[in-house]
């Protein structure tokens, strides 16, 4: 049913015989932003290595599904708290939007829980514990700033995870699902950015007008601040 532990097999170069030159151009374009990401992440990575010890997130496609599930758990837990204890001065519009986003993120979390449990019942991550002590839930800017960070992180995480999904019949389904979710995360990200400063909905784009992608290691190094449960991401595809 599921090629969970199978190493992704890629049909590299198939049908793209004329693509060599263009691919090099693209790599050149991407080289710049990739280098910047490397520099940025090497600055961040002075804390715990998320790849040692803790709950095994798994490998192959199930590992990627668990990775998405972990991030959706983080987002859903955050917004559940935001909606349960609104910051002072939350407007009606903000309440409406943040409640909608809570609903979407809970839907994503519960979807992954159900889907992974059905596909790989022994490999599904448990419910994680979070540490939100660095967030002042009574302060608008603390909450919206964190929301923006989480949404932008989610977009870069899904954008980076796509290429780690196996080119298989199951993989096509998973990539399709990731695609359905990431654009909703991007809609959230733009809205939150606009709530903080109207017109900043796409300020994340690079010189080519593209969003960026992060690897699981880069994402978990950032998200790790908020995830109390220790995770072992060392078997995730890269």
């Amino acid at each position: 049913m599921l090629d969970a532990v199978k190493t992704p097999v890629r049909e590299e170069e198939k049908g793209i015989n004329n693509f060599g030159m263009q691919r090099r151009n693209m790599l050149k374009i991407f080289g710049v932003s990739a280098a910047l990401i490397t520099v940025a992440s090497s600055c961040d990575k002075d804390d715990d290595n998320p790849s040692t010890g803790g709950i095994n997130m798994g490998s192959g496609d199930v590992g990627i599904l668990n990775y998405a599930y972990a991030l959706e758990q983080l987002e859903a837990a955050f917004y559940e708290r935001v909606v349960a204890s609104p910051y002072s001065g939350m407007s009606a519009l903000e309440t409406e939007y943040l409640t909608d986003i809570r609903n979407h993120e809970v839907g994503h979390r519960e979807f992954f829980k159900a889907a992974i449990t059905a596909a790989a019942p022994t490999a599904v991550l448990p419910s994680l514990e979070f540490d939100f002590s660095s967030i002042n839930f009574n302060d608008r800017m603390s909450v919206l700033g964190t929301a923006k960070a989480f949404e932008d992180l989610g977009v870069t995480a899904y954008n980076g995870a796509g290429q780690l999904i196996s080119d298989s019949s199951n993989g096509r389904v998973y990539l399709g699902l990731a695609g359905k979710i990431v654009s909703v995360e991007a809609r959230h990200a733009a809205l939150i950015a606009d709530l903080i400063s109207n017109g900043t909905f796409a300020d994340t784009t690079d010189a080519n007008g593209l969003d960026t992608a992060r690897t699981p290691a880069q994402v978990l190094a950032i998200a790790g601040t908020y995830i109390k449960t220790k995770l072992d991401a060392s078997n995730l595809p890269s």
Partner: protein
Amino acid sequence: MNLQNILSEIEKVDPEVYGRMDSRRRAMKEFASISGKIALASIPFAFSAMFNKAYGQVTPSVTAVLNYALTLEYLEAEFYTNIVGSPGYLTASAAAQGALRKIRDDENKHVAFLKTVLGANAVAKPTFDFTAGKGTGAGPFAGYLDVYAVQLAMAQTFEDTGVRAYKGQAVNVMSDRTVLTAALNIHSVEARHASHIRQMRRALDAAIPADQKPLKPWITLKNSGITYSPAADAAIQKSYNKEEMTTQAGVNIIGLGGSFQTDKAASEGFDEPLTMEEVLSIVDPFIV
């Protein structure tokens, strides 16, 4: 859109297009026979069916997908270029004008990026008729340059369609990790644009059906959130059909995690893809 020209355009980037359709002669014959038998208005659908037959079983090449993306980006870039500075645009607030310029700039960058990636294989920019009149200048969106609310309605539809179009092609470029990641990195930017345009439309509060308010940055059910004229509404609705899904990979989302998980919330949380054929049928009236 001249369909024979499209076949020629596809042939430039996919020399096997006629092989996929058995032969050029048969493709032309099939098309001629189709055109003779059916009403003009149905041609895009018949063409889509033929295209589907040719490509349905075969994954389009990465180059074909990139040219498809480039064509959509040409459309968006020229649309925003046309409206910036137009009478309708000049009635908007400074913040709204700034947002439209930002989006125009992003779309122009997407065009430049895809052209760089495709190099000599890049298709040329088509001629557009943004009234959706196929060159007559008298389609359902005639006069769009004068009416800001119509410009935003069109912008929303183009952005939401773009999101669905990229989403539909992700699996077709899986074999090339670099192209897949680039496509995803554009896909999410289109979604950011859609989110903001929807906020602008909500603030303007024009051309939104009363029973579809409040308009959200995300897509509720299959609501376009747009009403303008019967012809325009019908054209726009094609970009929102099938967005109302509430079951994903066999999992019913309604009720998951709480009673707040209504059909509306469940549909909003997941955007749905469109096939290449569906998108070509949507943009066809805009291409001369």
